[in-house]
């Protein structure tokens, strides 16, 4: 099974306090820690495990500026033999459909049985996988938390409300968006990254992809972010201050008062 996994380099929202830059045109990018989108690590791990069981290949693709190379190499170090970078100034400012259109061109350049994406990324839109499937006219399933290969079809589980699992059968080729928790992504050490440091990663622009640049970028976007802002805070929490000892004392009193001690 030949698998393409789409990954995104994002500011790690678990490691960063995200704040709005002056004027709201962007978030403050200074001192941000970047990482591969958390969901995408599960997607790459799942692809590697499928190929370990069934044979085939894993290719990791990312779209962005030159700094995506670090992200692609990190994911390749998990055990994906091939990488692909889609880099073109004209890609910047694409909406979700623009990103899916660029990825579609990359998919059509190769030959894949299965495309995996993370279920969502930093913007919480959860849109690119489903759009890519629609553009390719391939079947799609979101929030996948189990994959079992049975010949040309897959038996998959989707995570639905309340933590239940919806079982489906889906034909290949197809696009699946992967939910966290489907597996335990392997640790990537420095040695692993060194091993793939010299592997050549093709870099494709719109011309190399055979893509009409008018279909992507800000001019083609139906949806655009106007600005970032910090919502007018509600009442919010009463913030306690003091030394560790003073904080603990205040918390003990509050918990007692509110019935927090059984």
């Amino acid at each position, binding site marked *: 099974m030949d698998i393409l996994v789409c990954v995104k380099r994002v500011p790690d*929202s*678990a490691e960063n*306090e*995200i704040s709005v830059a002056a004027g709201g045109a962007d978030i403050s990018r200074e001192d941000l820690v970047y990482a591969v989108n958390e969901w995408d690590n599960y997607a790459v791990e799942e692809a590697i495990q499928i190929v370990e069981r069934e044979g085939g290949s894993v290719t990791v693709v990312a779209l962005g500026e030159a700094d995506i190379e670090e992200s692609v190499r990190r994911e390749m170090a998990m055990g994906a033999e091939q990488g692909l970078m889609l880099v073109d100034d004209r890609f910047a400012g694409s909406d*979700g*459909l623009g990103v*899916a259109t660029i990825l579609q061109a990359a998919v059509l350049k190769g030959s894949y049985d299965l495309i995996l994406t993370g279920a969502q990324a930093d913007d*919480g*839109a*959860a*849109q*690119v*996988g*489903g*759009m890519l*499937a*629609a553009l390719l006219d*391939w*079947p*799609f*399933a*979101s*929030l996948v938390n189990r994959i079992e290969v049975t010949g040309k079809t897959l038996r998959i589980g989707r995570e*639905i*409300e*309340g*933590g*239940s*699992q*919806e*079982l*489906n059968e*889906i034909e290949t080729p197809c696009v699946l968006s992967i939910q*966290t*928790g489907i597996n*335990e992504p392997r640790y990537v050490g420095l040695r692993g990254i060194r091993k793939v440091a010299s592997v050549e990663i093709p870099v494709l622009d719109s011309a190399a992809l055979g893509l009409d640049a008018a279909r992507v970028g800000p001019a083609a976007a*139906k*949806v*655009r*972010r*106007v600005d*970032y*802002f910090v919502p007018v*805070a509600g009442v*919010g*929490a009463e*913030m*306690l201050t003091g030394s*560790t000892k003073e*904080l*603990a004392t205040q*918390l*003990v009193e*509050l*918990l*007692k008062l509110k*019935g*927090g*001690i*059984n």
Partner: protein
Amino acid sequence: MATQVFALIPHSAGKVDDAALELLSAARAMFPEAAPTALVLGSGPSLADMALEVAASFGEVWSFNQEALAYPNAELIRPLLVKVLPAGALVLLPHSTLGIDLGPGLSVKLGAAYLPDVVGFDGLNGNQLKVVRQEFAGQVSAHVQADLSNGAVITVRSGAFPPALTGSGGGQVVDKSGAAAGLTARRRFLAVVQAEAGDVDITREEVLVAVGRGIGEQDNLALVDDLAKAMGATVCCSRPIVDAKWLDKGRQVGTSGQTVKPKVYLALGISGAFQHLGGLKGNPFVVAINKNPKAPIFQAAQVGVVADLLELLPELTAQLEKSR
């Protein structure tokens, strides 16, 4: 605006979901001049009752009653909607696991703009709709503008719009079941496997100590256990702790886990993503401890502390034990 507005009505086990009236409320906020049409898809005798119930609130109801629609398979619903919706339709879906499955591809097939996980409305100017979304796990908000000239698919976050009052619709039910005949898809629904019951039932507990990613390492969970013991409370958690297999799925609070209704909820190292807060009901007294002062949990909490859990938890446990 002459364009028609539609809402896909979520339902399960023969009952209309509360989210139906939130979609109506969102539709009225964004497109006050439209009388939204409800789309009710399913199978069996309960569908007619649900269509009638919905008709009390919506301007019109399109009912699709077909065996193939007994379970909401997005791969079947998408081509059906593409077939029956007029050009330029504005389609509202809940940002649920069905909406996420259906919406992106539907927007592509309709040639429409896609606005996912909308939490607010900020204006309609001609064909330009401005909405509010959240990014970076709720740490910042964004105004997002969409060109509606070829329609839009909009998924609405649960709880973002207050449910509309029922009874203001009085619409008729139009049976469109014929349009749904002969649907096929390359993805077939097999079954739903219910979540396994865990060793504890956190839904019945009155005092919960909830732990999230901010605890850092698995070994640090002992600090949480000690505190919970000192309080006589039960430990629950947010999604990353279950993903890491540190605690059972039965202890997860959130839309993809359990819905809890405690009196007191102590949130430790939990950022407060909406998926987590969606499982916290009954208006509990929430105390949040987090090292990130921007964490959205502080908007949901009554009392907050910005602190390092590894320092504060042992001290808190020690003082609690001493005070008993």
